[in-house]
């Protein structure tokens, strides 16, 4: 059991040492920063094998009581089950690789120590999130990762764009926190606790007397999940978050933090399972988000933003997976996505490194020659995310689409969902291969820029290669027909509280074949357009200007939010401070003060300054007092 605390406290220890250790040499930072996460990963592996033998053991360890106020009692504890273990492995494992990569990537930065300090804090917060045994500490970790995300997006705080993006990310995430908080209040009101296990045990009881409660709770939890995972309609912060250093994008905004929403839904599956309405909402949000993000990625010219939109799109797939009650497949896709998306970001980071932090893909091209390792890793990851058969993304995405296909047999409107998902799979292939072709193939568009392009050093190359390998073999965790052991194992998590746990769907060959066809079509289109024709940047939009502009401007959502939400609040604040505070609030006070002043101006005449006049008035008072006693009876 103690290994959990070991895993949890190591990154915290790293954070604390790094935060106060300003005299530490750079080499020590480079060892300590990734080192603690590496050790934590080792401990997580030990924990995993320890548990794996005993199928799906669930352990709840309480560290201490956090607060007691009447019957509001919250403990800080860890819940170890297959789901938590998988998340723990991803966070520490991928985290370790990305931190290793950062050692090379950030080596030139003056704030080297601060970077690892924040990264360790992030890993700690993420571990709190996934290991917590109660919703309250889930929220603590939830806000903690939001904070570190904010800090790391704004890591280069001299850049106004980074500062603005960080602020946006923080505020949007806090909107999600609000939803979570209210959900927690309702949970406490009905369950008198915030621990997972008692809540999940009593879901049927509460359902028995109030069906809408669970629906409202899940919808509010969904607000949090949507904000954190950058799904519609709270997605705007994720593309802007690419202002942060690339390892941050890889770890936080691709592999781990943004998938916390999926984790939340999977973790709360007894609640979501009891709220079919919410599940439908999750599916619809996921499908729309997947399609929306794919279209945005199609038109974007910023290498990192394309990847950001693709992240959003892939997480949307996971949402559909968990929304369709196929929790294991959602988590499976989460796992494979962590591999190939982190690898893609690392590749993008290597490209940026080589091209002096240039991110505009219209100025790239032909990097395959100078950066072969990066190209091959990128290619593998691109194929994986596109769903090219036999790579990891194919299996995980196929499971999700297949489960929707399966359920569509019973629920009519899911056909629309399934069609859109299949279409989006094709779009994914299109935009990813567009990226690949424009960046690595063809000829150099800006030779001067690419003059010194070269593969990154070993410390960056190695993690990239490891992840590329994982992107290939990760899918065989659930090879169709094979034992599908990740699904089997996770099922221990997803069968505990709900007798109606979904059966893992058998492979839907019809669905698989259609998806493969659309993917092939997407790749072929990308090949035709971006490899063979290689249009000038201006020509791209010319074929369908309206749609292109719509995609390029992200469907005008950002501008809409700015005009409809942000500015009105600012204007309200200005109105309050200039009009209400000055004239109404102060006006009431100063008005009464003025009234007093005016009346006192008249009263002042009474004050003649002659003492004898005053004495006379005293006498008048005395006479009145005597008069009162005389006439009282």
């Amino acid at each position, binding site marked *: 059991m103690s290994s959990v605390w070991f895993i949890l406290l190591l990154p915290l220890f790293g954070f604390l040492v790094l935060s106060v250790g300003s005299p530490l040499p750079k080499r020590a930072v480079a060892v300590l920063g990734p080192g603690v996460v590496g050790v934590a990963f080792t401990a997580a592996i030990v924990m995993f094998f320890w548990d794996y033998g005993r199928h799906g053991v669930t352990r709840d360890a309480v560290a201490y009581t*956090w607060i007691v106020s009447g019957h509001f009692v919250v403990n800080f504890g860890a819940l170890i089950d297959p789901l938590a273990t998988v998340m723990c492995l991803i966070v520490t494992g991928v985290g370790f690789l990305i931190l290793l990569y950062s050692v090379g990537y950030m080596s030139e930065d003056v704030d080297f120590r601060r970077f690892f300090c924040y990264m360790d804090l992030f890993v700690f917060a993420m571990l709190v999130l996934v290991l917590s045994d109660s919703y309250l500490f889930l929220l603590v970790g939830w806000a903690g990762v939001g904070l570190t995300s904010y800090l790391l997006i704004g890591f280069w705080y*001299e850049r106004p764009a980074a500062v603005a993006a960080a602020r946006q990310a923080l505020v949007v995430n806090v909107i999600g926190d609000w939803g979570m908080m209210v959900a927690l209040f309702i949970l406490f009101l009905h369950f008198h606790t915030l621990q997972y296990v008692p809540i999940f045990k009593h879901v049927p009881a509460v359902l028995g007397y109030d069906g809408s409660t669970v629906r409202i709770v899940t919808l509010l939890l969904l607000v949090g999940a949507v904000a954190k995972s950058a799904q519609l309609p709270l997605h705007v912060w994720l593309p802007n978050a690419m202002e942060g250093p690339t390892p941050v994008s890889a770890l936080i905004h691709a592999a781990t933090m943004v998938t916390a929403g999926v984790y939340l839904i999977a973790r709360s599956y007894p609640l979501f399972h009891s709220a079919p309405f919410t599940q439908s909402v999750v599916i619809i949000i996921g499908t729309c988000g997947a399609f929306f993000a794919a279209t945005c990625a199609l038109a974007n010219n910023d290498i990192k933003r394309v990847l950001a939109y693709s992240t959003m799109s892939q997480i949307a797939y996971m949402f559909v997976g968990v929304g369709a009650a196929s929790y294991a497949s959602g988590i499976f896709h989460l796992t494979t996505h962590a591999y190939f998306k982190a690898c893609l970001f690392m590749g993008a980071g290597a490209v940026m490194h080589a091209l002096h932090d240039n991110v505009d893909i219209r100025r790239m091209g032909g990097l395959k020659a100078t950066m072969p390792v990066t190209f091959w890793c990128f290619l593998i990851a691109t194929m994986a995310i596109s769903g090219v058969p036999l790579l990891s993304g194919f299996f995980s995405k196929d499971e999700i689409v297949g489960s929707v296909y399966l359920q569509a047999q019973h629920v009519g409107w899911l056909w629309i969902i399934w069609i859109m998902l299949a279409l989006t799979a094709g779009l994914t292939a299109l935009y990813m291969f567009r990226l690949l072709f424009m960046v690595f193939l063809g000829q150099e568009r800006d030779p001067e820029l690419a003059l010194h392009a070269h593969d990154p050093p070993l410390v960056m190359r190695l993690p990239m290669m490891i992840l590329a390998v994982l992107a290939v073999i990760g899918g065989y965790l659930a090879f169709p027909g094979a034992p599908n052991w990740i699904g089997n194992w996770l099922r221990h998590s997803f069968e505990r509280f709900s007798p109606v746990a979904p059966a893992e769907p058998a492979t839907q060959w019809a669905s698989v074949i259609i998806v493969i066809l659309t993917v092939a079509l997407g790749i072929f289109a990308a090949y035709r357009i971006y490899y063979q024709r290689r249009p000038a940047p201006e020509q791209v939009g010319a074929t369908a200007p309206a749609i292109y502009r719509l995609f390029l401007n992200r469907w005008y959502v950002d501008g809409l939010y700015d005009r409809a939400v942000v500015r009105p609040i600012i204007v*309200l604040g200005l109105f309050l401070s200039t009009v209400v505070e000055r004239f109404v609030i102060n006006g009431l006070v100063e008005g009464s003060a003025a009234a007093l002043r005016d009346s006192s101006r008249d009263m002042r005449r009474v004050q003649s300054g002659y003492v004898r006049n005053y004495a006379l008035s005293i006498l008048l008072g005395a006479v009145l007092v005597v008069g009162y006693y005389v006439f009282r009876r």
Partner: protein
Amino acid sequence: MLTLGIAPVPGMANELGFPPLLTILLFLPATAGLLLLLLPSRPRPEGGYSWFPVKCLAQTAALATFGLSVYFLVEFHLGNLGRSSHWAIQFPEHGTWLPSLGISYFLGVDGLNVWLVPLCTGVMAVAIFAACLMINRRAKAFLALMLIAETGMLGVFLSWNLFLFYVFWELMLVPAYFLVGVWGEGRRIQATTKFVIYTIFGSFIMLVAIFYLYATTPGHNLDFPALLAHPPSTSAQTWLFLAFLLALGIKAALFPFHSWAPDTYVEAPVPATVLIASVMGKTATFAIVRFALPLFPHAANQFSGLLSILAILGILYGATMALVQIDIKRVLAYSSISHMNLILLGIFALNQQGLDGSILQMVNHGVIMAGLFIMVAIVYARSGTRRLDEMSGLAKAFPVMGGFLLLLFLAAMDLPGLGSFAGEFTILVGVFLSNAWFATIAALVTILAAWYMVRWFQGIVHGPVGEQAPEPTADASDEAWTVYEFPVRRQRLTKDLRWIEMAMIVPLAAVVIWLGVIPKPFTDRTAPTVAAVAGVLRSGAHGSGSAAGTVALQPKRMKLVVQVDNGVDSSQPSQQMPCIWLPNLAKTKPSLPGRLTKRITTRLTHQMTHGSCQ
């Protein structure tokens, strides 16, 4: 055995005990303040004065007071004394003052003030440290006033007699007036006049209510237990409660009576801002819980909805205002108003969680606001401006300062894991249990809080490292101005956070983190008393208005126990509640571990041997 409230109890008279530690605690700062005035101020040969001895004495007194207050925290008797509902007054010190007017000198510690007293002394120790660093003009008078104000505030926290409370309530106002009016900035006279007129207006109405209570209480006793035993009629409660709430709400910056607060906070010198915003505001919220709620439970239940709505408006209003301010100090002022209204909202929830959270949040807010306002002065010393649009990218040159700013900013936006979250969450849980919509809407403030605080934080330390702000035009002809004072300063500091500045911030930061990581020791101490208050309020809700609070006491220095039948503890027969006596163990026991074991045994034996008090 007598029940307080029928008549002054003979056994209670003049039981100050020896040494009267609470009295020493209470008057130590004021005595030191008056002593300060006797110290000679030595002129320096190069002009100005050497305030070193004065500052040493003031700081020593402040630290000694803090140390003494921690003693009460350590010695405070934990747990619920074997009962679910009781209201034990520990370390009571009772002396007659004007017995014919029902006025006694009655001090004591319970769960409500056990944390607020160390908050007051601790924050004041920091504020006085800040004053030593930041104030050189007439420093002696400044420090003396700070110390006298500290006694006033401690008196409010410790008083168990309504009149004594009122005396200290007014006592703390006078130094505040001078602190703002003499050492303040720019529009200090307007600000301080507004502050004083507002406060006095409210106070007088409260005084009328106190007179009424004196006149109507049997035995004309203004001691709290006596008043609790004889609640006023429900119709009288209405206006009495409103009279109290007007006075206390003004001081606590309840919307819409808050408009003195931003001006005063901004114009006051930073140590005085800390005093007013961090501690003085808490006296009001504390007094609502101590006096206004339990004495008028029926009215409290009657008005809780209305007052909650006002508080919610204040929360959102303050947050929206903070969003558009340019002056970094004014942003904090409005954020403080927003948070104070949240504390009030928790109080008006009238249940255990709301009250527990409010008290926790009072301490949090005091600590965080103290840290933030001191940071404003520290930032100002380096930026030379307080305008957000004139400063940028200070983190580059002052990373350590940026780090502390970050921590306090996170605390102010209620980041989970830091102290204010524990308080805020508990408050909102309480509010949710009493009215779900109130909590849902009030929770929206977290979004606004994150927004304005991140704007504040980024405006100061982030952004391009641009040119520094223009030199202020006001000249620094007076040698006594320090770099921290607005708007005149001698030169800009170019070093990162100095050790002496860190000495102020680090303790505050440590408290913020501690209360976030493990707030249980906090609520352990408040919960029993809060349960008693909540019990009174619950019984007040059920029409009768009679809380049936009784007090039992022992002639010698014993713990005073107020028994409250909250009608909830069904396991206990509610009619005949045996009284619990506890001797003041602090007096008889030499060492802490020994005391601990003996405390338990004594408690048990006393429980067994003493019978019913009714």
